[in-house]
């Protein structure tokens, strides 16, 4: 079985910051906007090197989304930065009308997604953003898993013409994906090969899925782990190919089961090959204050939860 290790932990938002800084050097059309969260979004380097291409909007996210839409008229590629909560729910109609329906080339970059935001609590821990964004016609939804993949995704979306929602997080997590990887929007990455169960994970849950697969292997269970960094468009083919072999699937995400990755996978299976599925996701609830690790444990979002669901779904075959 292929195993993954890591030397260091880094936050995915720093991967975004590094990608944005690189874009500042390589793509003169890239501009950045922020609603008073430069440090949290790690946008400092881009701003330092390209002050004329940065727009500090202040605490006014609705205005930021509109300004971003307007900047595309004139050929700019705007990257907006704020927390996931303020990037989606707070400004849904601005994104819907001025960006998605208008077909504007805006990159909505959202940090601090999910419960791993931690101590700030439920007001800031959005668990509904994937659903909100994937429902918008034409919106691409990406949730990379580590620093390297977030950096690669940031670079890739600048070359894609159209609105994109890029979701990442606050805590330092293992860096296990290769540096300078090519990021293909909509193309899932198979991390381990297995025959008993497919585990399709996104964001922070990808590492947890790898940990789970190791533990399952010790119990004689062969798990195939797939890193689904793009939730929309979903890589139907990769999912169907894997379940044809394993016959069951666990989806894992730091998001409500309603509206998340799991539901998108269910649709693919229902239309093509009805297959037993279990969901590692929050159960229609808000989060709360606490450390990221304790919250992941309490809300059933870690490797232990994946192991449990994997065993349950195998039993349903």
């Amino acid at each position, binding site marked *: 079985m292929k195993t993954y290790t890591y030397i260091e932990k880094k936050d995915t938002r720093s991967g975004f910051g590094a990608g944005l800084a690189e874009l500042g050097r390589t793509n003169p059309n890239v501009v950045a906007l922020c609603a008073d969260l430069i440090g949290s979004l790690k946008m400092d380097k881009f701003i330092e090197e390209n002050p004329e291409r940065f727009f500090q909007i202040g605490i006014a996210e*609705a205005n930021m989304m509109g300004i971003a839409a307007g900047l595309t*008229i004139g050929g700019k590629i705007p990257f907006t930065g704020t927390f996931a909560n303020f990037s989606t729910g707070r400004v849904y109609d601005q994104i819907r009308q001025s960006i998605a329906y208008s077909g504007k080339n805006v990159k909505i970059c959202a940090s601090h997604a999910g419960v791993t935001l931690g101590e700030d609590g439920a007001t800031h821990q959005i668990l509904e953003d994937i659903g909100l964004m994937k429902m918008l016609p034409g919106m691409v939804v990406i949730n990379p898993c580590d620093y390297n993949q977030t950096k690669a995704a940031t670079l890739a979306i600048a070359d894609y013409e159209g609105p994109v929602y890029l979701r990442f997080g606050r805590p330092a997590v293992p860096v296990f994906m290769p540096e300078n990887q090519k990021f293909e929007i909509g193309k899932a990455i198979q991390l381990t090969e297995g025959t008993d169960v497919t585990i399709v994970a996104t964001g922070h849950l990808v590492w947890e899925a790898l940990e789970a697969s190791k533990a399952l292997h010790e119990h004689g269970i062969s798990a195939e782990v797939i890193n689904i960094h793009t939730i929309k468009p979903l890589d139907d083919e990769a999912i169907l190919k894997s379940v044809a072999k394993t016959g069951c699937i666990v989806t894992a995400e730091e998001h409500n089961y309603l509206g998340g990755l799991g539901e998108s996978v269910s649709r693919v299976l229902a239309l093509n090959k009805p297959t037993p599925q279990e969901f590692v996701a929050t159960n229609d609830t808000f989060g709360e204050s606490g450390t990221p690790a304790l919250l992941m444990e309490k809300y059933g979002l870690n490797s232990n939860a994946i192991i449990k669901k994997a065993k349950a779904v195998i039993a349903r075959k």
Partner: protein
Amino acid sequence: MADTQQLKDLTTQVRRDILRMVHKVNSGHPGGSLGCAEFFVTLYSDLMERKEGFDMDGIGEDLFFLSNGHISPVYYSVLARSGYFPVDELNTFRLINSRLQGHPTTHEGLPGIRIASGSLGQGMSVALGAAQAKKINGDNHLIYSLHGDGELQEGQNWEAIMYASGKKVDNLISTIDLNGQQIDGSTDTVLPMGNIREKFEAFGWIVIDIEKGNNIDAIKKGMAEAKSKTGKGKPVCVLLKTVMGNGVDFMMHTHAWHGKAPNDEQLAIGLAQNPETFGDY
């Protein structure tokens, strides 16, 4: 500069277009459209520096953004009569498979439109972004925008109004259509907004009044003054006092025709008051 009589004649034709468009589909917003007909005609025929044809980026020309998208009939009529698309296409307003949606959109690729609007309060932010893009591009053309007065009740406007002056966006002329009416009644009865001029001034804008917002000479003069105030470190606001339903006597001075189409008889009266000038579509 276009001859005032020609602009008046075009306005009359635009009024006919508006009435016929909303009558045909028995829906749409004639009141605000008629109130802004002189403004649109002057803007597109006299004021804006426009390139031939249409491209989305609009580099090297003035751009216009309509925030109160429900007055799409006047927008479509003036765009068609300014050469952006065939005048005959006005026949398809609000019909299935049309590029002329109830509210303006880029989605169907209608030339002349650069942003969807309809959900109110978003246009000024978009105009600000386009204005900032012009600055980065070293393009010294201007951005114009139009907003309803009732629309100022949407909070996003005030985010944009604060930003515009705070960041010295001085290549923007935002016009407020002060007709004092909204769907549920007069703006004063629905939600009194106090002194709009003082509010914009308090937010750091230069404010120009056009008291006779349905008079083409007054619009020309006021907008020329507004234009002369651009490039001085402050955004410019024009308070355009208009009469809703202007040019059709029974539609004037009331909110009743905000979103209601005339019947056959009312259409005939309205058209009789606005004889054909440039040819019906």
